[in-house]
């Protein structure tokens, strides 16, 4: 199988991630932040090193503002519940359901700004028009999971702050692929998926906070400290981390982030864009293929496309049977498909990762040409 579904989850992980998780399962078996004996403290210290790793990777000076979450979705739910509750927010027209559904659940009213993938000035201007005196926050993706388009979040953060409101970033597709500097770019809240571009395991995520503000926890319970209080502690990260942590997963995430830092986010992103650009150019030259992504040269390694002669479901299924792992459909982002004009059946999405080779890309394009050029392939 040639794996081209890294936007869903990266695979394989670097070998050190698997090793770190296996080691953690046997070496760090105590509950961190609960006991005072040797293994409990050493486990807590191992988790703190993961916070430090994330703090260095994402530009957070105090590791206590790195909050462990079970997913990027949980991080987004946590922040949105506090900042958007029943109020107005501005979002982009490329948002994932991990943003729109929590906003819907919070009874928020959304004003939408159009993203022009090849013109940051136009995108910023669209957000500026959408923000009103009643807007409570800007909530937007950093990188579209459907098209790979990159939003100018640093400029959007500056805009939001000029209007006196915070910005919440869905960095599920961005972390590990494009640089993120929480403090340097003044990003109030950045929500990270642990299992994608930072090569941790599934079941891990991060909430990165510019400041220690009183977010409402999604769940409350034991935190291992201030146990006589009826409510959870006031401060991060414990306020948002009730219950026992996913120690092997988080230590695997730490190893993944260490691997990303060692190779460099810029270098990884550049390599992925180079591989994806080769695929993109070949698809652009293929009759009957319609591209819905900007060139990876200005985006990332995510490419959405459709074919004139065959539907999305049949095409993605045929690619799967041919040994190519891609995803077809709406990618949990119906809003983006409304924007792209692909609301009837979505798109086929391929997404490269750090390990994807040019040769794998060429095999994919050759196979795609072979099957879309042969109508008989899809009959019967």
């Amino acid at each position: 199988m040639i794996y081209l579904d890294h936007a869903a989850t990266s695979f394989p992980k670097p070998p050190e991630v698997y090793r770190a998780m296996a080691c953690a399962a046997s070496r760090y078996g105590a509950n961190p932040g609960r006991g005072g004996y040797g293994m409990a403290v050493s486990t807590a210290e191992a988790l703190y090193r993961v916070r430090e790793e994330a703090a260095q990777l994402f530009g957070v000076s105090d590791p206590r503002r790195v909050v462990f979450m079970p997913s990027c979705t949980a991080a987004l739910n946590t922040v949105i519940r506090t900042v958007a509750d029943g109020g107005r927010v501005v979002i982009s027209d490329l948002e994932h359901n991990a943003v729109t559904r929590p906003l819907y659940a919070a009874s928020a009213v959304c004003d939408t700004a159009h993203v022009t993938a090849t013109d940051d000035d136009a995108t910023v201007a669209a957000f500026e028009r959408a923000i009103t005196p009643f807007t409570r926050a800007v909530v937007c993706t950093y990188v579209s999971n459907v098209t790979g388009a990159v939003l100018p979040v640093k400029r959007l953060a500056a805009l939001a702050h000029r209007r006196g409101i915070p910005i919440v970033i869905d960095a599920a597709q961005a972390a590990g692929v494009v640089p993120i500097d929480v403090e340097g770019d003044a990003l109030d809240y950045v929500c990270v998926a642990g299992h994608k571009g930072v090569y941790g395991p599934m079941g891990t995520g991060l909430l990165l906070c510019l400041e220690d503000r009183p977010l409402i926890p999604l769940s409350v319970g034991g935190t291992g400290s201030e146990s006589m209080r009826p409510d959870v502690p006031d401060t991060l990260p414990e306020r948002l981390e009730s219950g026992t942590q996913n120690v092997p997963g988080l230590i695997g995430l730490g190893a993944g982030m260490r691997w990303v830092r060692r190779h460099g986010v810029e270098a990884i992103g550049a390599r992925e864009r180079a591989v994806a650009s080769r695929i993109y150019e070949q698809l652009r030259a293929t009759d009957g293929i319609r591209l819905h992504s900007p060139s990876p040269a200005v985006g990332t390694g995510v490419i959405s496309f459709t074919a004139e002669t065959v539907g999305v479901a049949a095409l993605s299924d045929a690619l799967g049977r041919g040994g190519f792992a891609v995803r077809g459909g709406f990618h949990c982002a119906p809003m983006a498909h409304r924007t792209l004009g692909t609301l009837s059946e979505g798109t086929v999405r391929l997404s490269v990762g750090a390990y994807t080779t040019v040769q794998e890309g060429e095999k994919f394009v050759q196979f795609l040409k072979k099957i879309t050029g042969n109508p008989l392939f899809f009959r019967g």
Partner: protein
Amino acid sequence: MPMRIAVGSVSNAMRGKRLLEQHGIRAYVRRYASAEDHGCGYSLYLPHTHGEAIRWLNEGGVHGVPYEERDGG
């Protein structure tokens, strides 16, 4: 003379340990329980009292409170 500093959460304790290490002070993370201080928590145990420790912790955003431990005597 050892010094004990209550810091609340285990994250505060880890942060405090790092801050003191930056000043060349060795500290150990210990568990403590006190109903007067909201219940369970963590402290930093310094084998030797250091007059600047509390200030350095506060400057790094860790609120530390020195305390005496019952020694069972």
